[in-house]
């Protein structure tokens, strides 16, 4: 069993309204040293696959087609081997 951790962020050119809102909230709360905040998505997916190559290919495939919108988002991911019922975090 594989565990894919997938990190999705906006492409640099895309305005991230939520990140902006959080940044100004942090500033109001006196966290003054903060220069940039961006909010993305984080997925944990457990999957069965023949081997690491197959798992990698599968993660790429479904992330490209479903998890992200290629107009605005980009991603990276880590893959690890886990036991059936291991806790994830």
């Amino acid at each position: 069993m594989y565990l894919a951790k997938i990190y999705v962020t906006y492409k640099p050119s895309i305005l991230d309204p939520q990140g902006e809102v959080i940044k100004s909230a942090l500033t109001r709360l006196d966290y003054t040293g903060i220069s940039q905040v961006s909010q993305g998505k984080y997925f944990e997916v457990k999957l069965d696959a023949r081997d690491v190559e197959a798992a990698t290919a599968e993660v790429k495939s479904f992330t490209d087609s479903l998890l992200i919108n290629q107009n605005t988002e980009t991603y990276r991911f880590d893959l690890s081997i886990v036991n059936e019922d291991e806790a994830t975090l």
Partner: protein
Amino acid sequence: MKAAVIRFPGSNCDFDMLYALQDFGIDAEILSADNNDLNDFDAVFLPGGFAYGDYLRTGAIAKFSPIMAAVIQAANDGKLVVGVCNGFQILTEAGLLPGQLQVNKVPGFICEDVELLIENPNTAFTNAYETESIMIPIAHGEGNYYADDATLAQLEDNHQIVFRYAQNPNGSAHDIAGIMNERGNVFGMMPHPERAVDAVTGNVDGQPFFKSILSEIIAGD
């Protein structure tokens, strides 16, 4: 002449759209997104709502519904394909219209009447309008239209921008409220014309939208 209103799990403006079409004498019925055949229909409407809860991203999961292959086929065949609100979001996710609808610039759902400018009056969706500006309700949290500069330039040059906001409520690029494809048969908009067809609700500015579509479908018959 027959129109289909597609119901995705989580669609919630399907009946509003159906009743609006029927009020204008259009023979319409609701069709589940589990179907995969639109041969019997001359026009397809994707209504508002929260298809699949809008989980992950608006329209992201809906684009893989069985019906979507048929919707793409219908678009390629030159039939009218209209998406309102969530329907617009689904059409962009499915690649039938360019760009993407993002979280409103000031995050949060907004429901209110907004002024729209009719940017291109010579379309299948606007030809019955006799004014340049109308009031139509919006109701969305992710209506902030994004497309890259090249795409925006193309939309402008080809007059594909059909409606613009008079006062941009959500941060949309170029104040875009509604666009169509180059061929002019696929159209999406965030505001809800189907909520503005009945005098009793106090706003009839959506009527010419449906009249335009009606005359277009009849002409195509």
